[in-house]
């Protein structure tokens, strides 16, 4: 283990205005290791990654490559130095082909420095076969699922023969099968002496894949060391700096009347014949693999997509197809999967975002009352324990967990009778996660019906009164809280239901 690090951060600090994102953080990546970077949202992980990527320049301290200080003047320099980053949000060119996305700026050249398209496609196919996926190199990147986009990013990093690969939450959108593939690739990279920096909120994956870890908290270095002597609990303690009581505190509630009834809902080619009820005081989880059609069902229920058949009935009244306005009027709230794209107006202020779904109530004669808007945001900020500087700050500056709270506030301010939450804790740190869970549980206690889509089994099992499992667009299993085990849910999601 005495080999010198491939890349190291030495006492790096970085501030944005008055906010200190990193202060004196050090990190060493050894050749052939998978190293976990841990910390709650807002701990400075993204800033650290962007410093390695050459996007941010450190205020003080330095980035060392093979012991030599580097001054990256932009992402191109970091790429040239062999540092490849796979960002949490895929950064693809939708109009260009998959192969061009992989090789942008480094396309294989043929006669007269012209791009050799055949060679480029062949190399891309080769990379995909190393990853064990089938994607057409010539198809445009637009329309790929998030998981497939992530795979294109991974292929891009592989194509570099990078010496350092940073993966920011690479597994968030992948199915269990794809995660295993990815881990296989990481092992292969380690065997070639590359260093992998792995950022994930899933601690089981961290223990499976990584040898060492570094923990950040509030922009400061907390701990770095081998994972062998650690447990998930000990890591979480280092991350939050306090003991965690209970992660999934769903209180028992008696289920009341049926609030939402979905009857034989079908959208051609996406999902078929989906029926279920959500009762007052109940949390119903919609489980299944990515691509099974869970989010699509939620979108159709809320009226974003128009179903081809079936009905959505709220308190005995059938909703008009394809009308979010009707769904909102009937008392449904919807917290979407992708908060940056669909849940928030990133450039607008916290108060604007929080009030966005309640504008009618906050207006007099069609004019919005600023004071009411602010009061509403203030109220919910306190109730949800939002961490922010000023309510007039743009939402974009908040950490992921706090952004999610703003989305929740937006819908809770409407006092919904049914709340649909799609991946409510994706990419959120442990502390905030527990708060979101507590909140959902409280809502159910107040008689709200909650429909929760989640890819995390512990969350599903801990929170849900009933678990519905989807497989390839169909509802294949319904399990009561007592019968739901990790194994039964996973089997049903894989399409293997014992009947």
């Amino acid at each position, binding site marked *: 283990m005495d080999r010198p690090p491939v890349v190291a951060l030495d006492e790096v600090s970085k501030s944005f205005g008055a906010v200190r994102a990193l202060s004196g953080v050090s990190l060493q990546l050894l050749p052939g290791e998978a190293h976990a970077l841990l910390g709650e949202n807002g701990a400075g992980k993204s800033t650290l990654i962007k410093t390695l990527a050459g996007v941010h320049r450190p205020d003080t301290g330095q980035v060392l490559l093979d012991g030599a200080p580097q001054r990256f003047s932009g992402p191109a320099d970091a*790429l040239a130095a062999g540092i490849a980053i796979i960002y949490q949000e895929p*950064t693809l*060119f939708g*109009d260009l082909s998959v192969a*061009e996305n992989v090789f942008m*700026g480094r396309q294989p050249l043929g006669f007269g420095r012209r*791009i050799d398209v055949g060679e480029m496609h062949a190399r891309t196919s080769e990379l995909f076969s190393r990853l064990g996926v089938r*994607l057409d190199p010539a198809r445009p990147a637009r329309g790929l699922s998030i998981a*497939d986009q992530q795979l294109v990013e991974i292929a891009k990093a592989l194509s570099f023969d990078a010496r350092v690969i940073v993966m920011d939450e690479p597994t968030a959108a992948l199915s269990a099968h794809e995660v295993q593939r990815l881990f296989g690739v990481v092992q292969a990279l380690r065997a070639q002496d590359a260093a992998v920096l792995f950022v994930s909120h899933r601690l089981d994956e961290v223990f499976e894949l990584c040898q060492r870890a570094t923990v950040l908290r509030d922009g400061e270095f907390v701990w770095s060391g081998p994972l062998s002597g650690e447990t998930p609990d000990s890591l979480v303690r280092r991350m939050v700096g306090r003991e965690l009581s209970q992660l999934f505190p769903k209180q028992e509630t008696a289920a009341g009347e049926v609030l939402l009834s979905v009857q034989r809902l079908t959208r051609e080619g996406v999902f078929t014949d989906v029926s279920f009820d959500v009762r007052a005081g109940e949390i119903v989880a919609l489980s299944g693999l990515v691509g099974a059609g869970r989010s699509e069902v939620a979108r159709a229920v809320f009226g974003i997509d128009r179903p081809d058949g079936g009905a959505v009935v709220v308190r005995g009244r059938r909703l008009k197809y394809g009308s979010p306005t009707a769904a909102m009027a009937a008392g449904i709230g919807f917290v979407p999967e992708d908060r940056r794209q669909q849940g928030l107006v990133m450039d607008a202020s916290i108060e604007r975002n929080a009030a966005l779904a309640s504008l009618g109530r906050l207006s007099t004669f069609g004019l919005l009352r600023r004071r009411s808007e602010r009061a509403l945001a203030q109220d919910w900020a306190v109730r949800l324990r939002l961490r922010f500087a000023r309510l007039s700050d743009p939402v974009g500056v908040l950490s992921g967990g706090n952004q999610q709270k703003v989305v929740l506030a937006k819908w809770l301010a409407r006092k919904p009778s049914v709340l649909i939450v799609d991946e409510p804790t994706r990419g959120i740190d442990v502390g905030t996660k527990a708060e979101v869970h507590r909140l959902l549980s409280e809502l159910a206690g107040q008689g709200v019906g909650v429909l929760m889509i989640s890819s995390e089994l512990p969350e599903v099992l801990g929170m849900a009164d009933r678990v519905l499992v989807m497989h390839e667009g169909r509802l294949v299993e319904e399990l009561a809280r007592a019968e739901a085990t990790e194994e039964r849910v996973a089997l049903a999601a894989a399409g293997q239901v014992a009947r």
Partner: protein
Amino acid sequence: MTALALRGTAARRLSTRVGRVRELGIVVALALVVIPTAIVNPRFVQPQSVRDLLLNASIVALLAVGQTLVVITRNVDLSVGSVLGLSAFLTAQQFANHPGTPLLAGIGFGIGIGLACGLLNGLLVALGNVPSLVVTLGTLYVFRGIDYALAHGRQINAANLPDALLDLGSSRVLGVPVLVLVTLATVAVAALYLRSYRSGRELYALGSNPEAAKLAGIPVAKRTLTAFVLSGLIAGLAGALWVARYGTVDAAAGSGLELQVVAAVVVGGVAIFGGSGTVAGAALGALLLGTITSCLVVLQIPAFWQQAISGALLLSAITVDRLLALRLAKALRTTEGTSHA
């Protein structure tokens, strides 16, 4: 699994077909316009009138090629009409004041003027980080203003211009006007650049996802600058050719041309928010718009209606574009999940 793979290639085929359909669609539209007109007035398709048609369209088509390079990067160059005007006047003045100027040197002079204008646009957009719409709207007036100030109400006529230049505007090779050939050559070179060279592909990347382009290490400012310089350069060339074609230049040459050019680019299937489109499509778009104007004249439709009809055509082109995009998106979505094989 084979079914999935098959669907994947089907999507690929559809997407390339949609790309081609754009250009094919314009050809069909051309036929729809030309054939009825030819039936009403057979002289419309005689060689001489076809030549006139191509000649009239060639300058707009040339500008559309430059515009495409800019629009692909999610920018726009509204100053091309003014750049053409300035280049045309200064080139003509150069020939008039120095009768001994060699033909190519004079044209090179015009190109140089355009290049300088494009450089100014590009620097303001790329380094000043000012939206291109604002920058080129400003330089549209600045360049035209300089043009008026220099011209001082003068007009330069064919009598003051060398024969070599005027011949260029009227001579043909194998029956095809030289101006048309110059335009075709420019289209070919630009098409090759955009299709097969790294920096050309990077222009598409820039327009498709600017944020990702930055992270991918693409020199964003440099490429944006390149696009504007090329657009200016081509507008400069167009200015010199304008003198050759018309033989008379005043300060108003090319006024209002920029909107025709943008219309041609959009009709030609270049996405107005960048990322996709071809120069061939844009050039065909220019030809289509030019042909329609001529047809309306031949069909004796009152001139008042011409603009409305051109505008309606623009709207229908955008509608067709949108419908095709939606169909393509749907086809691509149904083939997702191929990786779960």
